[in-house]
């Protein structure tokens, strides 16, 4: 018996197995983030690496310069538009997934999630082909007699359309995971109590889908404010958001302290909305999820 206990104690899981992963992250994740924080408070530079004296100039410039206010506003407006558009478009798909039988549900899930496999660069390229000056949409318009070419590329609209499509799978996943309380049985119950299909939707299904809707709005908002590739390509260098500004200061003007400051601003927005989404989720789960 004593022997058995000794043997079983040898099985105690060794926590030190986590150390290699932790060291790697300390070196390649934590240290870089700390150096962003440090870099944000150095004097502006034009040569990249700098060990200049510390200052809060970058931060005051970023929050007082109307240009950067515009960049922050652009970032927020873009993310809001994308979050709302994706959530509205994903809603019927997510609802259909929730209400369907397992076989149909799987097919719909695969159809709506597998575009995630396609790199965002390739997907953005697809949108260049669709929305470009000689793309699908403008060709179709001129075929119907509209001479005027719509400049999707180089404007907010092109970025919103492309990002909406690229983030649609995330919205479908987030929403269907938040639709746990919706069931055909509840709709049936409402119907037997005298609700017509439309009233049953607005009184039962819609309120029960709010956790999923909120989850999707927050998730897509948060990933949209940090999107880089699509705003860069679809914006054609004429629409500025935080991510594109961070990249151009880091690699073109080589003002690393400013890039780091903008990164901190982005991180603050990111953190704020992540915290809000966590709080919202808590509130919903406290209200009780039965099924």
């Amino acid at each position, binding site marked *: 018996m004593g022997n058995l206990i000794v043997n079983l104690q040898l099985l105690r899981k060794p926590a030190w197995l986590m150390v290699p992963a*932790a060291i790697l992250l300390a070196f*390649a994740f934590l240290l870089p983030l700390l150096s962003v924080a440090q870099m944000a408070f150095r004097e502006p530079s034009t040569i990249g690496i700098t060990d200049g004296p510390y200052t809060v100039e970058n931060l005051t410039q970023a929050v007082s310069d109307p240009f950067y206010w515009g960049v922050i506003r652009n970032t927020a407006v873009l993310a809001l538009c994308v979050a709302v558009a994706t959530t509205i478009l994903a809603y019927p798909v997510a609802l259909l997934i929730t209400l369907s039988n397992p076989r149909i549900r799987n097919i719909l899930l695969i159809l709506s999630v597998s575009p995630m496999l*396609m*790199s965002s660069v390739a997907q953005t*390229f697809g949108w260049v*082909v669709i929305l470009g000056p000689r*793309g*699908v949409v403008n060709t179709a318009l001129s075929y119907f007699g509209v001479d005027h070419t719509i400049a999707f590329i180089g404007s907010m609209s092109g970025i919103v359309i492309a990002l909406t499509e690229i983030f649609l799978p995330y919205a479908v996943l987030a929403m269907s995971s938040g639709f746990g309380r919706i069931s055909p049985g509840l709709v049936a119950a409402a119907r037997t109590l005298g609700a017509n299909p439309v009233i049953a939707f607005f009184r039962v299904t819609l309120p029960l889908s709010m956790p999923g809707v909120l989850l999707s709005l927050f998730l897509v908002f948060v990933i949209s404010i*940090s999107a880089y590739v699509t705003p860069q390509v679809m914006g054609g260098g004429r629409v500025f958001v935080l991510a594109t500004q961070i990249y151009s200061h880091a690699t073109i003007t080589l003002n690393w302290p400013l890039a780091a400051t903008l990164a901190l601003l982005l991180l603050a927005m990111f953190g704020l909305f992540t915290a809000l989404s966590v709080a919202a989720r808590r509130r919903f789960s406290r209200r009780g999820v039965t099924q």
Partner: protein
Amino acid sequence: MSKLSQWTLWPMSILVLLFLWSPMGVILIVSFDTSNYLAFPPQGFTWDNYIGVFENSDFIDAFVVSLSAGMGVALLATTAGTFAALGARSTDNRWVGLLSTFIMSPLLMPNIILGLAMMLVFARLQLLDTITVIVVAHTVITMPYAFRTTTASLQTYDSSSEAAARVLGASPFTVFRRVTLPLIRPGVVSALVLGFLISFDESVISLFITGRENPTLPVVLLNYIEMSADPVIAALSVLLVLMSALIMLLINKIFSLRAVVRA
């Protein structure tokens, strides 16, 4: 399902799915176009764009970089992530919870910030634009997945099966090889695949830490799209999507086969 959903949800969902698949469809069509600039509708049918992909040394070089980095990432992230997942089962250590959160935290960090942050550090170490730095950077963002998939497969069984093996007289190493490893194999294999695919597709961090010497394929693709978008890019995009899809299908096949054999 009620008639309402039948007549409203289905048509709406089909439209949304068409929207979702439209870039993919358009790229596929354009990749066979005979004209040498992007235009719609296509002018003719040809395979030349696909041949063009393989004649472009930029693409081939970048493919080799992405391929080697992807394999390195898969191995490193899976090894470190699996070890961490095994270590995280220790319940009597108060650091475990904290370390688990730490390992998962890169998932919460936008790539644009991670890219800048890594550039700042690796520039000082003069490591930029090497395959090593790509592997390290991408391991940071893929290790959480490896940790999660292995943890998930560890949770599907009770550690009492290991205790049972010990009681039956197996040494700790034998237990690991004969009991633990087979049980976590699905998690480890999906970690390998995910690690490779995520690294292969990643563009933002790579933009910061690579340059002229060792750009990854997404970086080169992005540069081409911004400079000269032509049907060869479409052909390359189609090939990349095909590759990801094939890998996923293959893995699915292997796993469902195994599930059938087990049942």
